[in-house]
């Protein structure tokens, strides 16, 4: 079964003014779609073809198959990223996630500050993650290119894409402004579900 591009979980105009419709046309319709197509092309006729996406990510990383890994991980990362945002997002995390964030980073404000600094400062292309170790400890993890916490035995909780293509249409070189706007759309309910 070939891998397929998931629909956005909201209308592509739903996150205005944080992200424009045009930004989604490219980011979802072109970039994410290209990762899916290239993953299918590279997985065709191999064991990867019939595996679950997460297993493809893990196995291709272990086997050092960048043409498969980069596209599989980017497919996974983007699918996850769309769900980290919502037109009803923003505010602060509640419940167990809110408590864990306060525990791990002193306060939600401190967490935001550190996460934003890491996201703005990640050099080159990549993603900044909030992830959870097996023992439940939270960590802010800036990772290059397609790399994901999955390959570091950590569970992704929240992520922001800081490849230039993620913000260049709406923000040009001003990555810190893009990161600042992200807080208005974060879907904390989705993030909360990830900690299990």
């Amino acid at each position, binding site marked *: 079964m070939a891998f397929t591009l998931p629909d956005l979980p909201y209308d592509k105009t739903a996150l205005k003014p944080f992200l424009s419709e045009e930004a989604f046309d*490219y980011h979802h319709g*072109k*970039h994410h779609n*290209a990762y899916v197509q290239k993953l299918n092309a590279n997985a065709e006729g191999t064991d990867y073809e019939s595996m679950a996406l997460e297993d493809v990510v893990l196995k291709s990383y272990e086997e050092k198959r*960048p043409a498969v890994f*980069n596209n599989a991980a980017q497919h996974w990362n983007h699918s996850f990223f769309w769900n980290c945002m919502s037109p009803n997002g923003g505010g602060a995390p509640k419940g167990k996630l809110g408590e864990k964030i306060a525990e791990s980073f002193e306060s939600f404000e401190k967490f935001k500050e550190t996460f934003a600094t890491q996201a703005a400062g990640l*050099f*080159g*292309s*990549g993603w900044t993650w909030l992830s959870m170790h097996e023992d439940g400890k939270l960590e802010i993890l800036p990772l*290059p*290119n*397609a790399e994901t916490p999955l390959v570091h035995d950590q569970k992704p909780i929240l992520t922001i894409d800081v*490849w*230039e*293509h993620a913000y*260049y*249409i709406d923000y*040009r*070189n001003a990555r810190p402004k893009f990161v600042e706007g992200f807080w208005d759309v974060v879907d904390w309910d989705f993030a909360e579900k990830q900690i299990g």
Partner: protein
Amino acid sequence: MGKFQLPDLPYAYDALEPNIDAQTMEIHHTKHHQGYVNKLNKAVEDSGADGSLEELLRNASKHSTGVRNNGGGHYNHSLFWKVMGPGGGGAPQGELADAINAKFGSFDKFKEEFSNAAASRFGSGWAWLVVNDDGLAVGSTPNQDSPIMDLADFKGEPVLGLDVWEHAYYLKYQNKRPDYIANWWNVVNWDAVHENFKKVK
């Protein structure tokens, strides 16, 4: 005023139209390149790293990440502006043309190899034509690593460089990096590339 300075562009922002648009050139030069210069000045101030830009990069492994990333950004962009120009394009002449033909078979074969290196660099980085122990060689580096850095995984003396960070082409080409690369050949200043070659061959 910091130790390192943003060089002027050797032509107007719109001089490379339509292959590279004026808005991209202006943001690339006044925001991105300027940002590397500012952060490099801060990085050498903070770390006390001493020496010319070239010396810093050739010893990049001994310096901070800030010197590596921003020094590389300053060096690479300074080279990039000079290997392009209005009235560019065409093919190299003279001994550079001979060296390219001898090494790659033909100019078209060289272009193909260089274009592949540029298109297949995953994430941000640069494609290069360098002179190293193998003579002329084509390769790529990630982020702002430069082939002259002691820690680069592709080393040599740069003759020609192409920026394939998304900021170099996104406003005009968006996700179509191969189209950017194909059109970039129209603005390559082969006289400047030839001068680079003569210095390092």
